[in-house]
């Protein structure tokens, strides 16, 4: 008999949690037309409030967040999600505002939007922006759409290609494809930088632009970035900056100064908004003057000393979200920016880079470091030396879970064999970093003496290694009241 029950299996006839106001017979006269009614009630479980409460407490017990353990996930920037931001976001003065409320009645919200865009522009070297994209991928989509709109407005319809490094995050080529462009991959050279010769050979009058992040997904800052952006501009293309790695250079180097025309940010990375198990995030798009006409709607402007919402502008690419985007998320980022000030944001970037380099130095005793130069906020190591013991990066990642730390990002970027991408963020203390190194020391000893222990990890979780192949082969994507749960 299995202990694991979904909420559907906990149903008991007639039990319930809800309550509803009753207003007597006034409303009884109004009955919906019978032919429109569903023939049977939805097959949902009947559960009391105490059982629902315990069910979710049990689910929480079998999950961990940044609040619980160290999460050195490269490319994810798993920093503390400050609780003061949660308090701010739950103020009824914010939660009770309707997105279509008259402008005069939501001046607080509009102030937040306007000011946050200003602050984000200031640290990015951009002049305008929109907070409506609901996640990084949507911010990328907005930015790429703006680039194509720019070219089309100039009468140039030949630019159908978007250049993307081969180590780029998957959302970059996926976004290019969604925007109707052909994603063309540029090779990475031996130093971990963009291959300049390959880039030059791919630039043409068909190039809409180049999508780049800097530092890149290997954690390396290109010493040639200005030359790269200039090259692309010279051929008439535009530059899109993927802001996922902004934590490394926050208020230290600005994408606008590097030559980028448009960019997105991940507020759930750099700006501490909570990951929530996979979202909601927020992916603002920011740009320089020559693209600002194309920014998505709606926009917040200042007119006659008050804030107003603009819903129509023919040059805009249009709406990208149903309303103002994930307002309650970027509200948290607003509080974060105000708390830090520009001075604090600067400290974030510097500390993130210091913490990462410290870790990288220590990791060298256990792993191959493919790029020996100084890294930024994250770095790549390779676990390939353990392959002859039958141990892969995946196995080491699973064994880390048993030691109470989350595994780093594995097998990304795709171009590095048995790689782990590690990002400590600025938040972690020296003790946490030292403990992380010590854990690897332990695991490496285990690989020597008992590799099977590592190959079959994890051992101390609620489940052992899960069969992902089976899940894909025989998809079971839901349960129901009728399902015989074994």
């Amino acid at each position, binding site marked *: 008999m299995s202990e694991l029950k979904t909420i559907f299996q906990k149903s008991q006839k007639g039990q319930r949690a809800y309550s509803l106001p009753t207003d007597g017979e006034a409303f009884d006269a109004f009955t919906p037309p019978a032919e429109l009614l569903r023939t049977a009630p939805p097959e949902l479980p009947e559960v009391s409030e105490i059982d629902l409460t315990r069910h979710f407490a049990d689910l929480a017990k079998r999950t961990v967040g940044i609040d619980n353990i160290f999460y050195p996930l490269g490319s994810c920037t798993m920093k503390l999600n400050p609780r003061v931001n949660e308090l701010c976001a739950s103020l*009824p003065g914010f939660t009770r505002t309707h997105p279509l409320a008259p402008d005069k009645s939501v*001046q607080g919200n509009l102030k937040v939007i306007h000011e946050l865009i200003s602050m984000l522009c200031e640290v990015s070297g951009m002049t305008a922006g929109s907070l409506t994209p609901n996640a990084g991928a949507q911010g990328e989509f907005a930015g790429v759409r703006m680039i194509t709109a720019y070219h089309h407005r100039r009468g140039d319809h030949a630019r159908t290609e978007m250049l993307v490094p081969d180590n780029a995050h998957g959302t970059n080529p996926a976004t290019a494809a969604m925007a109707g462009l052909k994603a063309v991959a540029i090779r990475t050279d031996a130093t971990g930088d963009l291959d300049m010769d390959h880039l030059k050979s791919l630039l043409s009058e068909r190039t809409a632009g180049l999508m780049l992040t800097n530092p890149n997904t290997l954690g390396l800052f290109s010493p040639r970035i200005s030359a790269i952006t200039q090259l692309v501009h010279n051929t008439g293309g535009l530059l899109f900056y993927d802001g996922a790695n902004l934590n490394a250079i926050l208020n230290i180097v600005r994408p606008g100064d590097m030559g980028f025309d448009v960019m997105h940010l991940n507020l759930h990375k750099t700006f501490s908004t909570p990951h929530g198990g996979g979202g909601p995030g927020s992916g603002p798009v920011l740009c320089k003057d020559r693209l600002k006409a194309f920014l998505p709607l709606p926009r917040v402007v200042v007119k006659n000393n008050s804030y107003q919402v603009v819903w129509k502008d023919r040059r805009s690419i249009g709406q990208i979200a149903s309303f103002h985007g994930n307002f309650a998320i970027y509200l948290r980022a607003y509080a974060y920016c105000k708390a830090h000030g520009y001075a604090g944001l600067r400290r974030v970037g510097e500390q993130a880079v210091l913490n990462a380099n*410290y870790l990288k130095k220590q990791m060298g005793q256990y792993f191959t470091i493919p790029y020996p130069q100084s890294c930024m906020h994250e770095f790549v190591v390779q676990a390939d030396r353990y392959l002859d013991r039958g141990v892969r990066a995946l196995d080491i990642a699973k064994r880390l879970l048993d030691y109470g730390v989350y595994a780093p990002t594995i097998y*990304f970027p795709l171009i590095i064999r048995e790689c782990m991408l590690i990002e400590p963020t600025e938040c972690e203390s020296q003790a946490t970093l030292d403990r992380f190194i010590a854990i690897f020391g332990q695991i490496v000893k285990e690989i020597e003496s008992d590799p099977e222990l590592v190959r079959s990890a994890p051992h101390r979780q609620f489940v052992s290694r899960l069969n992902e192949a089976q899940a894909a082969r025989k998809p079971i994507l839901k349960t129901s009241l009728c399902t015989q749960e074994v």
Partner: protein
Amino acid sequence: MDFISNREEQNRHLMAALGIESMEELFSGVQRSLLRSRPVSDDGLSELEVLRLLEGTAEKNRFPLFDQYLGAGAYQHHVPALVQAVCSKSEFLTAYTPYQPEISQGMLQAIFEYQSVICALTGMDMANGSLYDGAAACAEAILMALRHHPQRRRVVISSLLHPHYRQVINQYLSSHDLEVKTVGYDAEGQLDLAGLSRVLNDQTAAVLLQSPNFLGFLEPVKEVFEKADQVSAVRILCANPMSYGLFSSARELDADIAVGDSQPFGLPLQFGGPYVGYVAVREGFLRQLPGRIVGETVDSNGKRGFVLTLQAREQHIRREKATSNICTNQTLAALASLVAMLWYGPEGMRRLALTNYQRTAYLRQKLSEIPGIRLFGTAPVFNEFALFFDRPLVRVLRLFRKERIEPGLPLGRYDRRWVGALLIAATEMKSKEQLDHYIEVARQAASR
């Protein structure tokens, strides 16, 4: 303030280990001209100052002081207290995407249960773990239909689909070479069936209908989908999921894809987000689903567990060939919806939908009896309805607002034919006293 742990003492140690003496040396590989100088003074705030600032900002919003009757895709419903209690738990709030499933079983099971509840409500076979919002869900559904019928180039959309949703669809379709046909509505406020017949052909990949539609009317969905089926167009139904507590499920109405926004369950208005897009499909559309999906499996001891599955559809594996570029979705918001939907349960869902229906019907009936007010149409509505005032709307609004009522959404900016009309939503949050107050003020507004 900041949340950096290491201070001078620790940083001295870290820098010594690296053989450097200052932070600047860490950036020696960066072009000099790109480096900004450090801010001279600390412009940060203490925690209490942050709170004070945000509380003051929230107070600048006068809207929460009003009795408000706005709907149009964002609805004010009771959020059960349990929702906040669950969603603020550390483990859910601060967890990452469950790519390491062994340590994220609770989160994965929650998403699995959300998928299951959406299927139970809509009657469909499978659902994903959420999309950004109802607008994105509609757009992705059309893209799914286009992949299902790769040779077809026409898409048919109801003119009473939420106008913002239509905007987002246009965004997603902007690079596709397509014909998008919009079908108008009749005097009842429902889709013009003759108009639909005129645009359906064997080139039609999809028919997208919203019911209740933007003006609150319940559409003749079965009839619309029967026509769509005759040309094998993919039948997409966009619906407020609360309506499924009472009215026919998407499955009973013969939809192929059910989409919408589950914001009415568990999510406050929050000025438009985060909300939750849902997409649920018939079996045959599984491989085309965008976004994350949780599936059931076993561990090496045969114990039941959950994982993200069918990831080969997604951007991190398929890159430019992915079904969508979506990565981060709305997981925590979906959890909020899940808790609320379970809190109501089957009986509560029905009663909740019924009381929403009744309060709206009551208000609509009483208002229709007032001279100077004309209903938009006579078809049944759920949760909201539109009506015209003969008196200038500017004065009507002023009168209501003096009574601290925001009476509804002026519709003139969406369509010239709708100038002078309001879209009015009444939910279970409105007591009979409040509704009667509205009616009283409306009587004055209509006559003066």
